[in-house]
């Protein structure tokens, strides 16, 4: 509790310092670059490739916002942050937005004074065990040793889960996901627990993935999404609706392949409003009329980003699951463009 008070105080200090400056949107336009906070490296979500280009699912959100605001998906300065530095970087104004697989929680939203503008990935905490352990449910894990990343929400969820099921466990604290993989493979722990997407990505790198199983229990809700500072609603709207544009584009069947002809005008008024051929949505946001088109063209719509970075055709191989469109039984849902 004490920690969050300190963080909160720092955030207020940061806000007070930032309040003197103009709106973030104007700052970004004047600078000609979007400062976007990302992770220092998480498979599929954000990592630089061999040429030093940032790639990944969260990176795609940054590029879409940059394209919407500045018209150029390359006009992004990626600022790598660790789990410890991410919130101070955002609060101090070093970055304009944070897209770093960050769980939307009450205290982060209210106490740390951030605005989560939406959810780009619905995750949940799961368990991975070696097949030879013969376990089929997390409730059979009484007395197991569990590899757990310290300082994350997963640590607290784990304690809650085992306590409410009245079973015991022995935690093996580890620092990073890479360390966890080694510890788990070396047999230092029976179980590895983290977000299900992380587990799937980790399992995909094993020499023999079929020797490990993911248990069916998902013990927490981890809605991951981009966030901005409290107090600049204009900028929050820009990021929120850039994300929504990607989601709506998928829902309406607008892809990076057919967006050229769609932008010439269609019979669907919502597509026209999204792509700026009808109405003045861009003007309301303080952006150009083709902002939505630029956002989608940056890396494709939500579904394309998903499939290209973490979907079933990639080594990570995540199914859409909860992250399918609401029309397909998932939770991905954007308010209408009207």
């Amino acid at each position, binding site marked *: 509790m004490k920690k969050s008070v300190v963080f909160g105080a*720092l955030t207020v*200090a*940061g806000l007070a*310092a*930032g309040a*003197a*400056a103009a709106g973030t949107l104007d700052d970004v336009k004047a600078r000609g670059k979007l400062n976007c906070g990302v*992770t*220092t*490296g*998480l*498979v*599929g979500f*954000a*990592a*630089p*490739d*061999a040429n*030093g280009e940032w790639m990944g699912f969260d990176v795609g959100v940054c590029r879409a916002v940059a394209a919407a605001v500045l018209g150029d998906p390359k006009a992004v300065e990626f*600022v*790598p*942050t*660790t789990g*410890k*530095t991410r919130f*101070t*970087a955002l609060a*101090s*104004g*070093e970055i304009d937005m944070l897209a770093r697989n960050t769980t939307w929680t009450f205290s982060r939203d209210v106490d740390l004074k951030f605005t989560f503008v939406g959810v780009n990935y619905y995750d949940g905490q799961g368990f991975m065990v070696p097949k030879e352990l013969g376990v089929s449910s997390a409730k059979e894990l009484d007395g197991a040793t569990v590899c757990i990343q310290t300082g994350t929400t997963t640590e607290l969820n784990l304690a809650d889960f085992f306590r409410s099921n009245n079973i015991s466990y022995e935690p093996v604290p580890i620092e*990073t996901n*890479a360390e966890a*993989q*080694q510890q788990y493979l070396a047999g230092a722990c029976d179980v590895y627990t983290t977000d299900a997407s992380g587990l799937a*990505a*980790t399992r*995909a*790198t*094993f*020499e023999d993935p079929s020797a490990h199983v993911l248990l069916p229990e998902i013990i927490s809700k981890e809605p991951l999404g981009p966030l901005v500072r409290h107090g600049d609603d204009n900028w929050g709207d820009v990021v929120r609706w850039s994300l929504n544009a990607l989601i709506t584009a998928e829902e309406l069947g607008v892809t990076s392949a057919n967006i050229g002809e769609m932008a010439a005008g269609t019979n669907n008024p919502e597509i026209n409003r999204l792509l700026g051929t009808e109405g003045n949505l861009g003007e309301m946001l303080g952006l150009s009329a083709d902002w939505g088109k630029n956002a989608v063209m940056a890396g494709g719509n939500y579904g394309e980003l998903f499939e290209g970075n973490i979907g079933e055709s*990639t*080594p*990570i191989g995540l199914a859409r699951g909860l992250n399918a469109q609401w029309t397909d039984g998932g939770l991905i849902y954007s308010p209408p463009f009207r």
Partner: protein
Amino acid sequence: MSDQNNNSIAFVATETIPESPPPARETGVVKWMRENLFSSIPNSILTIVALLLIYSVLKNTLPWIFNGLWTTSSLAECREILDGTTGACFSVLTERWNQLIYGFKYPVDEYWRPNVAFVLMLVAIAPVLFFDLPRKLLIFTALYPFVAFWLIWGGTILAPLVALVGFVAAGAFFQKFGRNNFALGFFGAVVIALIIWALGGAMIPEGASDSALLPAVPSRDLGGFMLNMMLGLTCVSLSVPLGIALALGRQSDMPLIKGICVVFIEFVRGVPLITLLFVASVMLSYFFPPDATVDLFLRVVIMITLFSAAYIAEVVRGGLAALPKGQYEAADSLGLDYPQAMRLIILPQALKISIPGIVNVAVGLFKDTTLVSVISMFDLVGMIRGPILASTEWNGVYWELFGFAAALFFVVCYGISQYSQWLERKLHKGH
């Protein structure tokens, strides 16, 4: 005598007995093994156990190394080709070597600049390390920081030039006035340097870096082992003089100076380096407006320098304390004033005693530069832990990458330690 020989002795050899080979157990390999490996039963047991250990280690590592793959494009491809047999996947090194050395954002076309800076560095530190070289070379050493700054960061050449002019003017002032009045010379030099930097900085035209000969590279784009080398070299060369000054300050009779030095040293030694780095990277940005922050590289250099200076100060203080009191009194009785006594008599001896300690701090500092990876700077370890292990191609390669990092650090650290032993032998006067 000859008579006796003839009568009383039946046989006299007339020629020397031909040399016979020494017994097998007293010669060659056998002797060496008997004396060194099997001299007693416990030693024999230890030898056999050690051989078994070495065998079991090599049995696993040698095939791993020699069977290693160098040309695949991902870990999955490595595993496919190896097909269950043991073998390393060194391809990650061949594909990402440039990221490991230069970081992932340093422009590829500009790699020659750090390379040239590295070669020049060897030239620049040579006269500092080896006293036999001509002293004229020290001029180049003094110019090197500005050349290296210009090469690595690029941008307008005016910035390092202004810095250089400031230092030269300050030095000249100190030469002229510092002889007679140290305080006037020192503080006057500081003021002059600050004035020149302020004026020069204001005169550099806005946007001069855009059209510069060498394109500017921001500090955030530095990375890899280059970053470790830069941090290590800068911080060691800054913290040794600072540490000596602190050690002398701590021994001073003036209460204010002594107090400041003691508080500083004890404070810095009482705080972990990682805390200082967090302060440098996170907290300081709260105290500056968002656009006017001090460069992150500079912040980290300041923190690491202060940290190691405190340790070096204590090492040097040990050297000063080890000198017999007679040396101080001898200096006084010769009529030398304080700077002369320190420069000519005390420090040469005290520093000689402190060499192992200073080198120890320097090696430790060089390895501590990997801590910057926790504040999301991509040094060698940061590159491995972050971007490379997080790429879909190479997620899961550990031994090859960390082995490479260990090898690079070992080469440098072992070199430093060998140099310090050579230096100790050379300075040994045999008393």
